[in-house]
């Protein structure tokens, strides 16, 4: 089993795809031991090939072994689409460990895209800050994954977060039922965007939230007594972390609690990942269902 990579070492790799492939190795090894069965693709049966069938689904291995033409049939093979929604706002550009949350999150997104693509899911991505500013729609065709990587690798325009508007735009974009991964720090007040998340969930989309936060954001073991600047709105305050730590931790915990309540309300599975966690471990934890599962009754 390949050992998990230290995030700082991994994120030192400039090429996003290489990072994603490196994580993939650990991810695959980890998933073998897990009851994971995929999101959308389920093999059902073989059927005899008839002229006119799409040759893409011809089982070439079976043909080689038996010299007969079989077509692999999958359940929901065209219905479920995957969209990775990545937050590129200014708050994601914080990092206390030599890399930012955005670097971490975009590597997660790329790995996820790679993983989904390998298991024949149709994957796309959308980048947002105050609006959805870049979209690669979910498609299945050669080279599509490279487009996804390229989109994820774009430098952010550094705008503030406006999650409500982004979710509403995604809701308009996704006409069909879509598996939507939202990678964000979710630091904005949940009451601002919970309604939009509710609309998205109500449209029968499978929404899953990956909250990416820096360890310092949780503990405030960071910085020094100085003027602190809010990356989102540029506001400044004189902060002495030693003084402010206790109150901060309380308020941050309350925020997370409220966040989980919102996700639970709308049946959104959520996972909180800190950027000091190895990426493959975090993904395994996410994919193997160690998420905060919403109660079944909550799903609309």
């Amino acid at each position: 089993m390949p050992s998990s990579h230290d995030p700082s070492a991994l994120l030192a790799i400039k090429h996003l795809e290489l990072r994603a492939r490196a994580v993939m190795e650990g991810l695959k090894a980890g998933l073998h031991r897990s009851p994971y069965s995929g999101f959308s693709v389920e093999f059902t049966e073989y059927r005899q090939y008839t002229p006119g069938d799409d040759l893409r689904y011809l089982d070439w291995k079976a043909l080689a072994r038996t010299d007969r033409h079989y077509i692999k049939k999958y359940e929901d093979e065209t219905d479920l689409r995957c969209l990775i929604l990545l937050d590129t706002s200014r708050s994601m550009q914080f990092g206390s460990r030599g890399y930012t949350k955005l670097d971490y999150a975009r590597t997660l997104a790329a790995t996820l895209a790679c993983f989904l693509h390998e298991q024949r899911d149709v994957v796309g991505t959308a980048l947002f800050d105050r609006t959805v500013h870049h979209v690669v729609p979910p498609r299945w065709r050669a080279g599509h994954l490279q487009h996804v990587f390229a989109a994820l690798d774009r430098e952010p325009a550094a705008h503030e977060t406006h999650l409500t508007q982004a979710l509403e735009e995604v809701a308009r974009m996704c006409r069909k039922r879509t598996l939507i991964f939202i990678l964000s720090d979710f630091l904005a007040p949940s009451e601002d965007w919970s309604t939009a998340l509710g609309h998205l969930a109500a449209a029968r989309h499978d929404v899953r939230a990956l909250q990416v936060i820096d360890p310092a954001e949780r503990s405030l073991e960071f910085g020094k007594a100085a003027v602190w600047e809010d990356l989102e709105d540029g506001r400044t305050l004189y902060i002495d972390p030693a003084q402010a730590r206790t109150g901060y931790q309380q308020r941050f915990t309350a925020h997370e609690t409220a966040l989980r309540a919102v996700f639970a309300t709308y049946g959104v599975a959520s996972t909180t990942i800190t950027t000091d966690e190895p990426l493959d471990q975090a993904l395994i934890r996410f994919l193997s269902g160690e998420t905060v599962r919403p109660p079944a009754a909550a799903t609309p």
Partner: protein
Amino acid sequence: MSLLAPWFLAGLALLAGPIIAHLIRRATKDRVPFSTLRFLNPSAPRLDRRSRIQHPLLLALRCLVVLLLALGFARPYLRETSIVPPATTAPRTVAIVLDASASLRRGDLWEEARERVRDVAADLSPNDRLIVVSAADRVSTLLSAEQWLNSLPGDRASLLAAVLDQTEPSWGPSLLDAAIESALDLSREINENAEAPGDTEIVLVSDLTVGSRVAGLAGLTWPIGTLVRLETLASATEPNLGLQWLGWGADQGQGAPARVRVVADQRAGTRAVTLQLHDATTDAAVGEPVSLVVPAGGTQVALVPVPTNAPAALRIDLSGNDETFDNQLWIVRDAARTLPVHYLGPAEAGDAQSSRFYVEAATMGWRDPEPAVTPFDPAAEVQPALFVITDPLAADRLAAIRSRLESGSFALVLAHNGNTLATAAALAGESGWSAGSPTSRAYSLFGRVDFEHPLFAPFADPHYSDFSRIRFWQPRPITLPTDTAATVVARFDNDQVAVVEVPVGQGRLIVWPGDWSPSASQWILSTKFVPWLQALGERTVGGARQAGVVEFGTLTRAGVESLTALETVTGDSGEPGLYRTTGDRPRPLALNVPAAESLTDPMPLETLENLGLPLEAAVSAATTELAERRLAAESAAALEGRQQVWRWLLLLVALLLVAESILSLTLARRQPVPTT
């Protein structure tokens, strides 16, 4: 340790820079970016005095850099006890300029002057060099440095006393500028030859009156280390009035009044004085005295009437002035000079085409000498005369004229034909002179003129030396024998002889190859003709008139080189009085005290300062202290220049800057930098 430029320590104020920077930096310059401040409440500022200054080691390094830089600019040096200004150890050269002019004859000034000289010499150290120069109508070295150094230190005072005893004040002017310059040259020469050249001090022992000549000091270059000390004589003297000779009245003939200016000191007050004329030889009063009132510091011009029967040599006495050295003015009336001009030619007096017409016209109005165009009478009294000969002469006249030439007369022969040239040759006492035929050239011009010859000397100045516009039509070529005594004074532009002068006894024969009529040349119509002829006339009677009344120091105006060329008529030689020139044509000469010596008001010190004299004299305690300070500063500068401590300080600063850079880099790397 001492500092050469301590004012640079003001740069220590820059220490505040790094200190403030270290305080400010700590305050709120740093900004910590954070994802959101939503969960943070502002903290109260925390004051911790112990940590107000950030990175004290870095601050100390930076302060040290500023400190060393300020110290380096202040140019420190270490005092050494052995350092004594070299100027104080090297032997000095002291040049005493002793004013020996006529004004020193007043009161006890001369005695005081000698006493001052002795005092100056007494203050010298044994190695110092002394020069004594006297300033009168001429500069003379009374005591040289060699004489001083070659005598034993114990004998030097007596040597100086002997020199001073032999010296008396002169009757001449006070040429202080020439004397100081001479003393400076002697000092410079001594310093150049000396192994250890020291400072030079010029001590001016003088009454320093406004009549002293100091204008020549203006352009003098003063070597470094030269000082001028004034020893102004302060003996009590009486206010003075003086006489200045202005010349004879309008008509210089017999009976013309003598014009005299009486000059009074500022101290004199308004004085009533009397001028009385005396016979210079018998001392008898001549005429009536003239009274006049002279205001203080003012002048008054008097016309002293001279009777027509008064002798030529006179003396004017001034009464009413207590200082007697300049109360007499000796004057001599110049004798009138006449110049007989004998024209020997055929033309009538009124013929404008003849040379005679122009000679007579040109000589009209001359005052000195007074010309008289008369026919030549061989039996008349022999005196210098000018002969103008245009025709060949008979043998008897020729002999008579030659005789006159030998006794000092001048003859001008216009050789327009061969016979006239033969007459000229006969007068010259030579043979072999020949005249050729005129050339076919349209005209000739003067080509070469000897402006050093007395004939053309008046035109030597480039303003007047242009002869190129005077045309001569077909002058007759003259050929002279090789052994001739004649001098070719001018030649035409084709190298043909133009003007020839031949000495004949004491006289001169001038030969001009051609006529002076307007049809022969433009010479007599040119502006040069009259001055040329007048110069010839003056030369005939002994040259330009020389001054008959002169002062000591201006003998050359009378054409006399020195007093030794004069014979006394009255009084002793070397004193003001009546003299007679020696030589062929003796004439009386009156020699007086220089008028400037009568101006005995003290000279303002500013006059000398404005002339750039490095004065030590107006010497007050303040200036002495200043000089000492300057000396100390100079020695300190020399010491600092040798030690050059500042170089080491700069090297130390460079090392400290390297250390500071390394330290600040290390500190900057230690500082946690958040990623955004």
